[in-house]
């Protein structure tokens, strides 16, 4: 675009969001989509228009994976490279994409039409391998389908028309129109059951006072579905008690944990229920503004969600004096993320909503005291809000009777990997892993990773363990691996994920995870001895103890839990050194640089003379 037009476009993009620096994320999305990238001069212009420095804008552009400081192709292919995809033929898919496009991952074609990138978890592990092309999802890729897709794109078929098959349920609706499948395999009593009576819970709440609503919420025993399991009623109570003029309700739809996709299905099939739950929360804590933080990978669901919000405004379920309750005003906006797992962490998510880099905040103060725009804020998971709507429809004791003592209700599990029936299972808390595996028709299972990369890796003797906060807590991700799969490869891939997704704020997580991966690779290459395992344990402990947020507190878990549950795998890779020798030291490699500079061989160490020039 010529400069004058570009400057005008940038100006209009900023004006669209009232030149507000708090909406920088939205502004950058406009520009990224319009110009294909955000280069230095544009950063400078945006900074001037919204009153921040150029380097502040650059800070965001270089933080979020979906923004780019160079111009990307008109068509951006983001192929998911998580471990499930790797085990389901990723290498071949990468090869075919590369061949068809003539570019490698990370490159843009010379004609500026295509960019090809690899990306972690796009929330489609049950339909792997999968890719996002612009914001259209292409699940279940095969070499054949990739060739077909690229051929059509090259012929100029618009991305959304390339695959005209539709998935089940609302995926087939005009506003979603996606070939993604819900794959709901088991509907539980609370969320996926079709006995839900919309708005009944909300109506009942509006006849109670907020304190009573919070009490029922506490009595229900509901704990957050995002992984940490914090009691939701207590969170609401803390926010209500904090002195403030304004409070905020945020729904965490960032769903970044590897192997989870249940929020994707809830957003598709239960969005009204989720919004009802948010509305109840708003009434309980005294909030008039809410945000749905939607991960960029789910941008294809945005028109659908906007439409649901619009319909609710039309029927007075959002807006002023909701359902005739004088003085209760509440509305919701959608904040699109831009590719950062750390933005699932609630304080980082709040930063992101404020148009900042998604870095966790200093705590205390906690979000319930000082959150979004410095005001008390509750952040809850999609599933948590769905449960809330149901609790008020059916009663708190109905809910607390489901599940176990300390884990009330059901849990949505996202099952992927080596099993016949990948997909969503809504099961009461307390279900044994073995029972889940049977339902999913998983045979020859050797490894189950519960709770994503930051969860626990268990082997066969632990399959009788139960999924609940008392035993195996989880955000819902269950990755199943058969006996052909390599434990160390799984660990390595999780560490890569954490290295890529660490925000880099604090030393132990930023640097420590790189060191962990280096040592795991040494083990994989057969160069490690038992002292390396001590090193791994010690380093893991350091990272867990001294990191400042949940990412670093959990990132060494794949190492520790594989060491604990699969010690034999490690043992089989170790080689004890002969005295005085370091196995991983390679004299030829060490000399290479000197040889190159000196342009001659080493008389002592070169077995064969060769000129490296």
């Amino acid at each position: 675009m010529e400069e004058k037009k570009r400057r005008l476009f940038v100006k209009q993009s900023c004006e669209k969001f009232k030149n507000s620096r708090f909406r920088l994320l939205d502004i950058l999305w406009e520009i990224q989509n319009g110009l294909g990238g955000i280069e230095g001069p544009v950063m400078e212009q945006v900074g001037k228009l919204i009153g921040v420095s150029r380097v502040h804008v650059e800070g965001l552009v270089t933080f979020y994976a979906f923004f780019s400081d160079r111009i990307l192709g008109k068509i951006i292919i983001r192929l998911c490279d998580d471990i499930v995809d790797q085990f389901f033929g990723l290498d071949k898919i990468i090869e075919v994409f590369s061949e068809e496009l003539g570019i490698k991952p990370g490159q843009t074609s010379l004609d500026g039409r295509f960019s090809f990138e690899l990306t972690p978890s796009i929330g489609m592990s049950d339909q792997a391998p999968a890719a996002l092309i612009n914001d259209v999802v292409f699940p279940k890729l095969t070499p054949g389908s990739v060739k077909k897709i690229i051929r059509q794109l090259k012929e100029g078929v618009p991305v959304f028309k390339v695959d005209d098959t539709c998935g089940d349920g609302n995926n087939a609706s005009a506003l979603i129109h996606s070939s993604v499948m819900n794959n709901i395999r088991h509907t539980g009593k609370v969320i996926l059951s079709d006995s839900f009576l919309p708005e009944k819970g909300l109506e009942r709440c509006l006849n109670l006072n907020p304190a009573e609503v919070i009490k029922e919420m506490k009595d229900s025993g509901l704990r957050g579905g995002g992984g940490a399991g914090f009691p939701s009623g207590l969170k609401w109570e803390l926010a209500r008690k904090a002195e403030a003029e304004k409070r905020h309700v945020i729904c965490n739809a960032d769903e970044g944990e590897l192997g989870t996709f249940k929020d994707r299905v809830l957003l598709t099939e239960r969005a009204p229920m989720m919004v009802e739950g948010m509305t109840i929360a708003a009434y309980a804590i005294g909030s008039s503004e809410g945000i749905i933080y939607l991960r960029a990978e789910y941008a294809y669901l945005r028109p659908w969600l906007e439409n649901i919000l619009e319909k609710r405004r039309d029927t007075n379920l959002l807006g002023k004096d909701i359902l005739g309750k004088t003085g209760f005003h509440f509305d919701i906006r959608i904040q699109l993320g831009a590719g950062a797992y750390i933005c699932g962490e609630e304080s980082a998510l709040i930063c992101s909503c404020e148009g900042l880099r998604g870095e966790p905040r200093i705590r205390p103060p906690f979000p319930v005291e000082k959150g979004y725009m410095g005001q008390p804020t509750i952040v809850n998971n999609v599933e948590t809000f769905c449960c809330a709507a149901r609790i008020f429809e059916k009663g708190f004791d109905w809910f607390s009777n489901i599940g176990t003592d300390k884990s009330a209700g059901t849990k949505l599990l996202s099952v992927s990997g080596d099993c016949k029936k990948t997909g969503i299972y809504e099961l009461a808390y307390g279900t044994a892993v073995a029972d889940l595996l049977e339902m999913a028709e998983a045979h020859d299972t050797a490894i189950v990773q519960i709770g994503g990369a930051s969860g626990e890796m268990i082997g066969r003797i632990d399959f009788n363990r139960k999924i609940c906060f008392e035993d195996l807590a989880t955000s819902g991700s269950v990755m199943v691996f058969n006996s052909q799969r390599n434990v160390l490869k799984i660990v390595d891939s999780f560490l890569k994920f954490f290295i890529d997704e660490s925000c880099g704020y604090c030393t132990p997580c930023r640097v420590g995870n790189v060191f962990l991966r280096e040592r795991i690779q040494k083990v994989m290459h057969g160069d490690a001895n038992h002292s390396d395992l001590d090193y791994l344990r010690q380093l893991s402990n350091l990272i867990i103890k001294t990191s400042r947020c949940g990412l670093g507190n959990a990132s060494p878990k794949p190492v520790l839990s594989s060491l604990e549950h699969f010690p034999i795998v490690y043992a089989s890779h170790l080689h004890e050194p002969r005295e005085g020798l370091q196995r991983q030291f390679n004299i030829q490699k060490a000399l290479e640089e000197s040889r190159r500079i000196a342009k001659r061989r080493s008389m002592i160490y070169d077995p064969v003379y060769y000129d490296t020039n």
Partner: protein
Amino acid sequence: MNATIKFRIDGTQVVTKAGLTIMKAADNAGIYIPRLCDEKGLEPQGSCRICIVKIGGQIVASCTQPAEDGLEVENDTPEIRNYRRDLVKMLYHEGNHLCPICEASGRCELQAVSYYLGIFQPTKYPYLQPDRPVDASHRDILLNTNRCIRCGRCIRASKTLDGKNLFGYIGRGIHKQVGVNGENLANTDAKVGDAAMALETCPVGCIIQKRQGFFAPIGKRRFDLKPLGTNSVKQQKGGSEQ
């Protein structure tokens, strides 16, 4: 708030006014807690993690954690000392720190904290050896981010003391670094007299004033004269490595 509170650091009672961080209260009481990203006059950010202490079994950054009445703070214990050592070593291995040829040697806080903690040798971690280009564009200032420890002191000094915003964090994860507010430093209004460029602001040799290297002979450099931790009333052993 002028209520006073009492708490303990390694058993020593500290009496202080309410509303301070543990580190501030410790400083006032003459108890040294080692640190790198924190600097007097700047907002604390709790990123280097060297100043961690333990309270109620939890490890927290003392530069951001409020001191509260009745707290029992563990500061100079073997566990915490070992964590601090490992964290400092990580910083050495993350960047390129060739102390004998570095202009900042002797006035470098990373080096001084290492001596305080008893680190004198290369360590167990691998070297990452970054090779980011050096920004020598400016007439008086040189920026070598291969030595940067991401403490962000220059960022905060430029913002709060100079009102300039010359620097900011860019990138993320291991690629997170300090960026300048323009194509390069010469394209900004950086001045050698800025607080952000002061010799004390950058704790390592990342921001260098040109023609200012090696101005003090060995033995007379800043931390030769006054090693870190020695201006405290209560002297602690940083200890040597176990």
